[in-house]
Structures are given as structure tokens and as C-alpha cells.
């Protein structure tokens, strides 16, 4: 019964991702993207997906990470310039991961849709990992674990980033899988070698996916380090020992980092220089400095850029408010279900061990890191996109809350209401657009700056959903499509929440 139930939930989850995935038939080139696919709601409405897809096209078509002028214009304004070559500011990791899907999609004439499905696949994997962690580490009942996974997938704004080419779902996968692997490594000596190799591999790979992962995954690496130490007390003697595998397996990390450094050296002329450090194409073109690359002015301009300067404690208060409560990006405004996650943490406070502490550190670091970022909004985005890894962890703590609350109908109803609201908002974002301006811009130009803008798109039948545009547009309105999907989610969540325990017991 448990297997059947799980299969049903996962099948429906895949179905929901398919129903909302962005894309068009065919393989659009740079010119086509620029002309037709940039205006929201569209598959390339924002520069992060354009940038990553441009790298992907460049890798396939030109066998190079540098972009042609045409592709650079597509990625604009997130383009840097070095020795006359254009580079997207994004790391190549996501594009490399999407390569096989792109090739597979080419067979069916859907390279764009298949490439975008990379994030969706990682999202499904994240659901599985949430269930695994919830079951094995927290020892939550199966229905609670399922509900946690379902919440992350369909009641959080993570959904909007599972159907396009963003790094967040992949980052979350590396965080959750590394956490689980370390927990396993700590617990058992079985498969230690493979486990520790994968832990190091994950860390190096996560950095290639997105540079901030080097910081976000630090608590996990500390967890790994601590887990490798052992203090054994025998009568009067104590022995402190270290599992040598942590050192032996680190070769994977150093090898990958070496390759990463070499990639930087080959492309940007320095082992340490990242694409984000390159002089920006936008300001350079605005200041007419492009033709003066050898001039002192150009050099001076380049030196002004300091990535570390983007993170400051001064931004912290405003950043925390933005990420948690603001009307344009606030977690509690978009996904109030996570209030239960914080209550879950609160109920856990008295029994925090190292494992729980590491999970809390991941959340804290994620919040503090992006709250002190100069742009906690994440540019034009739907909800607090930088908090997606925390949403995954908080989903597990929602499970903790439900486990502590017991069989209480009021708790269930309250949870269901919060889930319904959060899910309604998430679906709205997934089905329409992620291109939501900041409040400050909204106030200035009299634009809507949160999900109310998505609602406008919904009523105007405007969506970038591949399935709707290709198969359903002539048969039903977008509102009806939205309602069908929403009812499906509510039905599934109702089953898990209210009937899950009874069904699974049988």
C-alpha cells in the first residue's frame, strides 16, 4: 500500500511539473529568443534562464563557454567581457547538467522543454530526499514525510524554479543529499569510502553549480569533519581518532577544484577569477568603453568590482525583512505554511543534537547570507528564490510540527488552510511568470509587485506553460486550467493529510 501510495503521489507530482513546465516546440536561436521569448510570461523572461540556456547552446553549437555576440545580447545585462569574448555571469554547472537532456530533447524536437526539465527532475529527487531524511533521521510517519515533500514541491515558490533553468533545485539537491550522506557516514562504516567520495564530489559540484554554495554548504562540511572524529573512552584512557577516509576522499574535491581553477585560467586568465568578476558588458557599453579595452580607464573600471563587497552586515535587517515579511518577496506572504516549519523548530529546541543543529545552521546561514546580500530580492523573481534550500529543510520541520501535534483535527485543518493558500500562490507563479518587479519599482512605475501581477496574467490567459500553450489553449481558459491543477493538488494533499495515516496503516 505504501509503495502504491508513493507511486501515485510521485506520478501526480511529475504530472504537475509537466503541466507547468515552460517552453516551446523547437530549438529557438538567439535572435528568436530576443524577439519573441523575452517578454513575460515567456520561457526566457529573465536573464538567469537566458544566460544558462545561452551557455548550453554555446557548448553544443560552438563547443565553447564564451558566447557569440548574438547570444551575449540575449543574456544582457548579465554578461561580462574578457579579451573581447563574452561570458555569462552564471557558472556553467547547470548548463552542463542540462546537456544530456538537451540532446535527448533534440530527438523529439523539444530541446528547450527537455533542458528545462533538468530542474524538475532534481525537484522530484529533492522530494525523495525529503522523504528519506524525514523517515530515517526524524523517524516521522510515512504520511508526514510525504506531506513534507509535497509541501516543498507544490506549496512553496520552489515550484516556479523547478520548471525552468535555475540553480536553486540543484543546489537544494546537493545540500539534502550531502546531509543524508554524512548522516549515513556518521552512522555506519558500511560503504564509507563511496559515501565520503560522494560528499566531497557534491561539495565541489555544488560550487560549480553556484558559487555561494561554497558558503551555504560549510555547515555540512563541518558536520562531515566532526563526524570523522571519534572519542573512545576505555577505563582510564581516552582515544581521539580520525577516520582517514575524509582525507583520502578529499582528492575528488581537490581534483574538481583544480579543474574548475583551470577552467577559470583558460577562460578568464586567472585561476581565482570567476565569471562574475569580469567587467560588465552593460556598464561598459553604456560608457562607450568597449573599444578601449587596453586603456587605463577600462582597467580601472575592472578593478572596481569586488564580489565580497556585495555582502554586508548593514543589509541584514532590511534583507531579513525582505525575505520574511515584505509584500514583494516575503516567505510568510507567499508561503505562510512555513510558519509551521518555524513552530516545528521551536518544538525541537529542547532536543537539538548535532544533526538537527546542522540543519538549523543551514537554514540560518541561508537566511543570513542572502539577507546581507545587496539584492535579497533576487532581481525580478517570484517569491524569495534564494531561500529555496531553506524551504526544503523547513518542510521537514513542518513534519516535525505535525508529528508533535498528533491526531488533532484543528491542527490538520489549520495546516490544510495554510497549505491551500501557499499552494494557490505557488501554482499562480508556476503557471504564469517569475518576472515580478521589486516593490520599489512597483511603487515608482505603478506596477503590481507580487502575485497580484500573476493573477493579472492568469485572467489575461497569458502563460509560458508548454503543455497549456500546445495542447489546451484552444480547449479551455487558463483560469480553468489553473483550477483543475489546483483541485488536483488539494485532493492529493487532503488524502495525505487526512487519510494518509489510516490508508498507510492498512
Amino acid at each position: 500500500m505504501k509503495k502504491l501510495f508513493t507511486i501515485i503521489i510521485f506520478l501526480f507530482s511529475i504530472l504537475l511539473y509537466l503541466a507547468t513546465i515552460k517552453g516551446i516546440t523547437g530549438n529557438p536561436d538567439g535572435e528568436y529568443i530576443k524577439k519573441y521569448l523575452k517578454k513575460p510570461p515567456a520561457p526566457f523572461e529573465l536573464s538567469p534562464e537566458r544566460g544558462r540556456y545561452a551557455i548550453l547552446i554555446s557548448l553544443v553549437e560552438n563547443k565553447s563557454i564564451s558566447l557569440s555576440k548574438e547570444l551575449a545580447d540575449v543574456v544582457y545585462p548579465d554578461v561580462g567581457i574578457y579579451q573581447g569574448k563574452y561570458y555569462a555571469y552564471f557558472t556553467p554547472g547547470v548548463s552542463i547538467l542540462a546537456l544530456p537532456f538537451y540532446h535527448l530533447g533534440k530527438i523529439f524536437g523539444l530541446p528547450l522543454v527537455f533542458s528545462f526539465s533538468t530542474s524538475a527532475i532534481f525537484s522530484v529527487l529533492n522530494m525523495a530526499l525529503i522523504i528519506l531524511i524525514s523517515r530515517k533521521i526524524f523517524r516521522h510517519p510515512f504520511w508526514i514525510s510525504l506531506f513534507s515533500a509535497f509541501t516543498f514541491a507544490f506549496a512553496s515558490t520552489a515550484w516556479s524554479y523547478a520548471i525552468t533553468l535555475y540553480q536553486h533545485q540543484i543546489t537544494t539537491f546537493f545540500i539534502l543529499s550531502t546531509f543524508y550522506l554524512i548522516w549515513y557516514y556518521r552512522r555506519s562504516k558500511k560503504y564509507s569510502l563511496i559515501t565520503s567520495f560522494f560528499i566531497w564530489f557534491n561539495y565541489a559540484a555544488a560550487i560549480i553549480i553556484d558559487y555561494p554554495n561554497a558558503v551555504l554548504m560549510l555547515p555540512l562540511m563541518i558536520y562531515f569533519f566532526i563526524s570523522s572524529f571519534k572519542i573512545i573512552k576505555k577505563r582510564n584512557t581516552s582515544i581521539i581518532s580520525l577516520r582517514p577516509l575524509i582525507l583520502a576522499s578529499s582528492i575528488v574535491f581537490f581534483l574538481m577544484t583544480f579543474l574548475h581553477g583551470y577552467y577559470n585560467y583558460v577562460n578568464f586568465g586567472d585561476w581565482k577569477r570567476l565569471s562574475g568578476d569580469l567587467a560588465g558588458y552593460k556598464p561598459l557599453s553604456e560608457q562607450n568603453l568597449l573599444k578601449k579595452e587596453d586603456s587605463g580607464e577600462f582597467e580601472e573600471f575592472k578593478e572596481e568590482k569586488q564580489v565580497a563587497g556585495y555582502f554586508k552586515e548593514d543589509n541584514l535587517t532590511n534583507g531579513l525583512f525582505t525575505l520574511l515579511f515584505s509584500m514583494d518577496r516575503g516567505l510568510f506572504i507567499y508561503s505562510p505554511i512555513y510558519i509551521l516549519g518555524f513552530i516545528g523548530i521551536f518544538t525541537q529546541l529542547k532536543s537539538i543534537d548535532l544533526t538537527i543543529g546542522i540543519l538549523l545552521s543551514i537554514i540560518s546561514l541561508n537566511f543570513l547570507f542572502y539577507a546581507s546580500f545587496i539584492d535579497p530580492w533576487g532581481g525580478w523573481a517570484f517569491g524569495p528564490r534564494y531561500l529555496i534550500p531553506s524551504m526544503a529543510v523547513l518542510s521537514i520541520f513542518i513534519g516535525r510540527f505535525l508529528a508533535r501535534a498528533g491526531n488533532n483535527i484543528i491542527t490538520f485543518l489549520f495546516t490544510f488552510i495554510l497549505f491551500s493558500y501557499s499552494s494557490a500562490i505557488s501554482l499562480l507563479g508556476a503557471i504564469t511568470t517569475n518576472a515580478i518587479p521589486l516593490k520599489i519599482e512597483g511603487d515608482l512605475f505603478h506596477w503590481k509587485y507580487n502575485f497580484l501581477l500573476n493573477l493579472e496574467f492568469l485572467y489575461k490567459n497569458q502563460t509560458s506553460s508548454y503543455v497549456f500553450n500546445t495542447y489546451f489553449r484552444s480547449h479551455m481558459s487558463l483560469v480553468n486550467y489553473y483550477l483543475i491543477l489546483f483541485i488536483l493538488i488539494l485532493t492529493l494533499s487532503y488524502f495525505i493529510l487526512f487519510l494518509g495515516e489510516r490508508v498507510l496503516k492498512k
Partner: protein
Amino acid sequence: MIIDVDLEENTDKKKIKFGISGFKDSRDIRLLTYNASFEDFLKNWLLKTPWKKFVLFSSIIISILSTSYFFFNNQIILYGDAESHLNIAKRVVHSLTPGLAQLGGIWLPLPHLVMVPFVSVDFLWRSGLAGSIVSGTSFVVSSYFLYRLAYLITKNKIASIVSFIVFALNPNILYMQSTPMTELPLIALFILSTYFFFKFLRNDRDLLSLIFAGAFGLAATLTRYDGWFLVCFEGIAIILYYIDKGWRANGQYILIYLKEKVFNLTYSSSSSVKTINKIKGKIEWVRILEGKFFLFATIAFAGILLWMLWDFLILGDPFYFSNSQFSARTQQQNWFARGELPAYKNIFLSFLYYFITSASNSGFIVFSVSAVGFFVYLFKEHKKEKFLFSLILLVPFIFYVITLYIGQSVIFIPQITPKSFEWTLFNVRYGMMMIPSVSIFLGYIFLKANKPTVKSFIIFLFVIQCLLYVIGYSKVLTLSDGIEGLSAAKRPDAELWMAKNYDYGLVLLDDYARTLSIIRSNLPMENIIYVGNKPYWDVSLKEPEKYATWIILQKDDAVWKAIYDDPVLRGRLFKYFKKAYTSPDILIFRRIT
């Protein structure tokens, strides 16, 4: 492969074995093997170390090192106020009209009085080291007694050392202890008074501690106005302490007494009268309360009365410090008129401003951990005096929230100050006053963390906080305020010009407007005519040529308004003086010889 490189150190009692014996049976690398006696040795070592001496000597070294660092980086007199403090002290001994009256009636006199012997030496005055000596000494005293205060609360040497380390390595403390500002002297007196006050609360027969608490409270009231709040709260704490004590001992009698008093206005029976007499005998604590309270208050509040008396005798108004045009209140009214006094009459913002300021001064990670310590202390500690201890340790917080609310002080901090304001960094040093309390509660939570992993985690967080300062993620706010904030002293070119061209003669300038720095302009203090030099000042504003060889005017300052804006005096100015320096804001005139 077996690698076995063991270094053995055998003594009679302890055996420590370092080595690598990896890939053997357990496949683990053995890093350290030690027996129980080593643990005992470690514990004994920790307990037997003379921590008091360690605190004393290390704080002296830290103080000298950080003062040297800021001295060689030319950062001791970054604040406009820093020079003013030095100048006030200097004028007591070197001025056209030297004497105690130069102490003025706004800023409290004690820090300036203590600085007097040092500013007499010109080098110490001009370099600011005269103030550094006072603040540095205060830092050492603070560190030493903070350790003792933490020990009084926790009864644990390690927790107390942790408190000391958190305090003594705070970069804001380290910067301010190098400057002539008055924060460190107040922190020292706050800690001293609190230490003796807590000693008294622990044993209320210890009258000497009460007297010391009052005496240091008195000194605090003559250092900064925060001290006034401290002694008031200590007074309240004495009352609450004895009410609590009396209630615990005679609660049932007090209830009967109140019932008789409230419900039967006349005593109905002789038995009732007997009961009342019995109760009166029992409530002896009221008399003790009166005695102790008045003993403390007579000493502690004397400073406040003396200051009011001083203001009355010298300046004609006992509340001159609040009513004068130079007072903080008047300055805050200017901010209010500009619509830039955000916390005024807004308790939430007042709280938020001070909360963030104190968190940023302490380091937000340290502050967060300490906040946990505070709540654990408040809700888990069983000692009866915990509420009074917490109350006193929170005095700076309460003081600043209230003063922000009533518009007596203003703080601009980048995190929450609207970007539309002209300045977003000002007076952030006020948050430093919470650092001693934060340090104590961090030491406390370190003690209460019963698992080694939690203790290690607290240490790890502290290290992270230090790293955040090192990489520049966390700003040293007090230093930034002196460099880029509104507290920074202006450095007009005029002072460089003056330093090169001044030869001799008296200089008329409005020092309150901080037209230029007397120190950096290389002017002798004895040759300055400013508002505190009567009758030179008043006469010079009517007959500028009478005393002054040089006249320095800044747009809209007192000299400008009196001489330059008056067509008659302006004519007179140009008759006797020639314009020697011109800038958009500052004009310098030299007497025609």
C-alpha cells in the same frame, strides 16, 4: 601499511601519547591518547591558573597594542567630540582664562578632570593620547571587574574568562578605549558600581559594598548622563530587594495589616490592636530599607545635586545641561524640525534602533548567543536575585530606549535609517554600553551548555564573529562613524593653511561650531578666544580688533553672525584685518600690522 609514530611523554602521574597508527584494525588515525589523569591535570590547570592576574596583564597588553595601532593609523581623534573633550580638559590648565569654570555646564566634568594632568603635556593633548590613557585605564579596570562581576554571577572561572574575552576582543571596545571619548570611563564605572551593588545584594550586611556601589555610582553620574539612570535603578533595586525580603518573611502579617487598614478604619477590638502592634514589630525590614536606601542615595545622588548646583552657580540655571542652546535636547529639536528623528514618540522604533545598535556593536552573532543566555538566566536560574541582576544589567538598554523615545538622543544606523536621510551613521557608539552585559550573558550560556559539542559550537560562533570583522563583513561601527559618519570631525583645508601660516597672536573663533580643529591647526590653546573666555569673547564680537590678531569665521557660526553679517562691524573688520584665506565656508582674517 602500518604507520606508528608514537611520541610518548611519561611522567609519574600523566601519560600523553600522540601518534598516527592508522589503517590498523579500526582503520582510524589515532590522533591523541590520554588517560584520566591528563583530564584531571587539564582541569586542575584551568582551575589553578591565576586568572585575575591573567585578565589584568592581558588587558594591559591588549590596551597598549590597540592604542598603538590606532595611534599609528592616526585614528585617535577621528570624532569631533574627541577633540572637544581634550580641549575642555586643556582649557582648565591652558587658556586665556584657565580654571575649573572651563569645564562648562553641558558635558559632565569627571572625564575632563581626570584628563587634566595628561593634557598639560602638549604632545599628549595634540596626539589625543591624554584621552587614550584615561580610556585605556578604564578598559583595564572594566576588564578586571567584568571578570569579577561575571564570577560573582556564575561562580565559574571559565565562564568569567569567556566573558572577559568577549568584552576585551570586541573591536568597538578596542577602538573606543584608544580615544578620548567618555564611553569607556562610564563602562568602567558602570561595571564597578554594578559589581559592588551585586555584592551587596548577595549579602546585605556588607555595607562597605553598598558604599562603594554608591561611590562609583556617584562617579558615573559625573561622567555621562547614563550614570544618572544607573543610580536611579540601583535605588529602585534596593527598594524592590527589601520589599521582596520583607514579603518573604512577613507576607502573612502584611496581609492582615493591609486588611485592617483598608477594611476597618477604626480598630474594633483590643485583639486587633494587639495584632497591629505585633505586625508593626515584625515589619522591621521597612526601617532597614530606609536606612540602606538613604545610605546609598546620599552618596550616589550627591553627584547629580552637585552638578545642578554647579550649573546654577556658574551658568544661572540648575537645568542648564538640558535647557541650554548647546544641549543635546536642542540639537535633537533641529533633527525633529528636519523630520529626521525617527524614534521620537515611537516606542517600537526606539526599541528597534537601540536593539540593532547594541547588536551591531556587540557583533550580531555574539549578541544572538548572549540573548539566549539572558533568557536562560531569566527563566532557568533559581537564584532569587536574578530579576534584580537582570534589571541592572539592562539599564543601558532601558536608558537609551527611553531617551530615544523622548527625543533626548538620536541614533542613525545604516540598517534601518531611511536612505532619504542626509546621514545614516551617527552616535552608534551608544550601543557599546550593552557590551559588558552581552559578555556576561555569553559567559553564562557557555557555562550552562552542558555538552562539549554545544560549548565548541559557541566558541566556533565567536570565532566566526571575529572572522566577519576581519574580512570586513561586519563593520567596526564606532570606527566607521568616526570616518564616514556624522560623528567624524570635519577636516577643512583651512586648518592645514592655518597650521602653515599661523605665527603669533590671539585667534577669535567659534569653537562650538567646530570651524576648524585647534589641535590640527597647531594653535596654542592659550591664544584662542572662544565663547568660554569672558570678557575677551564678548568684547571681541563688538570690537574685533581689540584682542585678536586672527579671526576665523565659518558661514553662519557665532563670529560670522556677530561680525560679518553686521554691516558696521564688517566695515570695521575690513578696516583692521585683511582676508588671508578664502573658501566657500571659511574665511580667515589677519590683523593688518
